[in-house]
C-alpha cells in the first residue's frame, strides 16, 4: 500500500476529485492548510499598513491506495492539479505497513 499526500491550490480541489473519481478513487481526507514552498506570499494593505503574507491557503489531500495503482493515481492527481505556475504544490508518496477497517477488522489492501 502507498500513501499519497498532495498539497495543491485550493481552487484545484474539485478538478482533482473529479479526476480521481474517473479512475475509481473516491476515498480521501482533505485539510485546509497554510504554507509555502518556493512560491512567494502576497502583500496585503490595511489602512496603509502593509503585511507580507507568506503562509498562504492550500489544500492537503491524503489517500492510501494499493501499491499497484500508486503511479496511475499520482499521475492523474498531478495532471489535474497542474496550472503550470509556481505554487501548484507537491505530491509525496510513501509506504504504508498496514490498514484496518474499524467496522469489521479487515486488514491490508482489502480494508482500503
Amino acid at each position, binding site marked *: 500500500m502507498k500513501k499519497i499526500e498532495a498539497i495543491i491550490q485550493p481552487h484545484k480541489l474539485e478538478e482533482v476529485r473529479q479526476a480521481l473519481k474517473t479512475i475509481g478513487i473516491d476515498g480521501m481526507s482533505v485539510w485546509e492548510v497554510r504554507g509555502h514552498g518556493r512560491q512567494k506570499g502576497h502583500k496585503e*494593505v*490595511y489602512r*496603509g499598513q502593509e*503585511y507580507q503574507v507568506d503562509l498562504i491557503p492550500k489544500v492537503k489531500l491524503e489517500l492510501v491506495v494499493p501499491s499497484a495503482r500508486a503511479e496511475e493515481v499520482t499521475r492523474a492527481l498531478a495532471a489535474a492539479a497542474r496550472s503550470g505556475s509556481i505554487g501548484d504544490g507537491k505530491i509525496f508518496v510513501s509506504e504504508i505497513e498496514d490498514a484496518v477497517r474499524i467496522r469489521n477488522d479487515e486488514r491490508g489492501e482489502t480494508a482500503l
Partner: protein
Amino acid sequence: MNKQSKRSLIRGSSFPDLRRGARCAVLGVLLSAAGLAQSAGTDVAKSLDDLKKAAQNAQMSGDNAWMLTSAALVLMMTGPGLALFYGGLVRRKNVLGTMMHSFILMATVSILWAIIGYSLAFAEGSPFLGDFRYAFLHGVGAEPNGDYAATIPHQTYMVYQLMFAIITPALISGAFAERMKFSALLLFMTLWSLVVYFPMAHMVWGKGGFLNGTLGGKFPAWDFAGGTVVHITSGVSALICAIYLGKREGYPSESMRPHSVVLSVIGACLLWVGWFGFNAGSAVSAGALASSAFIATHFATAAAVLAWMCTEWIMAGKPSVLGAVSGAVAGLVAITPASGFVKPMPAVLIGVAAGVICYLMVSKVKKVFGYDDSLDAFGVHGIGGTLGAILTGVFATKEVNDLRMGKAMGLVDGDAGQVVNQLIAVLISWGLAIVGTLVILKICDAVFGVRLNKEDENVGLDLSMHGEEGYNFEA
C-alpha cells in the same frame, strides 16, 4: 364595490378639493360659533383651545415618533454597529473583548446617565456643568422641556441624548484595542463620562453652557450633532490612551491583520444607517431641518467614500474595501457638527476633505509618529471631528438654519468670526480631552493597572478577560 373602483375613487378626490372642503368646514364652525357667541362666548374660546391642543398633539406625536426612532437608531450605532466595525478589525483572539468594549457601555452609561449624567449635562448650572436637579431623572417626565425640545416629551429628549453618551466613550476603545484590562476599562469609561463627556455636552448643548450657540453661551459655537462633544473628545482621548498604554506586543513587526473585514463592512453600514438618527435626529423634530440634516449627512458620506477610495487607489495601488468603509465613517464624523447648518454641496466638500485627510492620517502620519492607535479612533474621529467643527464655521448658512434671525451664520454668509468661535470650541474640547483623559488614566492605572500583562495579551482578551472564545469551530 370592488377594490379597483374604490382605489380610483380615492385617487379622484384631489388634495385641493379636500382642502377646500376643510376650509368650508372651518368657516362653518366659525360662523356657527359666531352666531352662538353672544349667548355662549366661552364656547368659542373653548373650541379654539381644543383646536390648538389637537394641532399640538398632532405635531407632538409626529416629532415624538421620529425622535424615539432616532434614539433607537443611535443605540444601534454602538451595538451592533461599532461593535462589529471594531470587532472585525482586531485579531480573532480579541473579537469578543473588543465587542464587549462597546456593548458594556450600553448598560454602564445608561445607569450612570439615569443617576447623575443627564443632570450634569443638561440641567441648568454653571457654564461648565449642570446642577443636580435632574438626578435620578427627577422631574424628567412627559412634559416637554421647552429649552431643548418643545414638541417632544422631556423623557424622549433625555433618552435620545443618552444614546450619544453611550457611543462616545465606545469610540475611544478603538485606540486601546487588544491590550486594556477590563476592570480598568469600566472605571475609565465611568470617570471619562463624568470628567469629559458630561461637562463637554453641557458646555455645548446645555442651557447656559459656555459654548452654547443659542442658549446664552459666551462663545457661541455650532455643533449640530456632536463634532466637538462626541468626535473630538473621543478621538483626542483615544490618542492619549494609545500613547499612555503603549504599543501592542509585537507592533508593528508582527502581523496584526483584521480578522474579518466582513464584520467591519457590516458594522460600517449599520453606522451609516444609524447616523441618520444621530444627525437628522438632532433637529429634535421631524420637520424640514431634519430632512436637510439627513441629506447633508448622506451626501457627505458618499463623497468621503469616493475620496478615500480614490486617494488610496492612487497612493497605494488598490481600492480596498476597508478603505471604502473607513471613508464612510470619516465622512459621517466630519459632517456631524455641520449637518444641520450646511447645504448639500458644501456637505459634499466636507466629505471629500474628510476622506482625503483621514486617509493620510491613518496611513501616513500615524507611521511617522509611531503611536499604536490600533483601530484609528484618533485618525478618523479626532481629525475628522476637528475638520468638521472648523468647516461648520465656514459653511454654516442662515438659508439652512436661521438661528440668528436673519444674521450671518458662518463664513459663507459673511461672518468670519464664527470660524474663530469654532476654533475656540475645538481648542477647549482638545484641552479637556487631553487633561481629563491623562488624569483618569493615572487613576485607573493606580487602582487596577490599565495594561494587560504580557501573557494575557498574548492569549487574547477573549480567553484572558472573559473566559470565552468568539469562534468555537469544533462546537
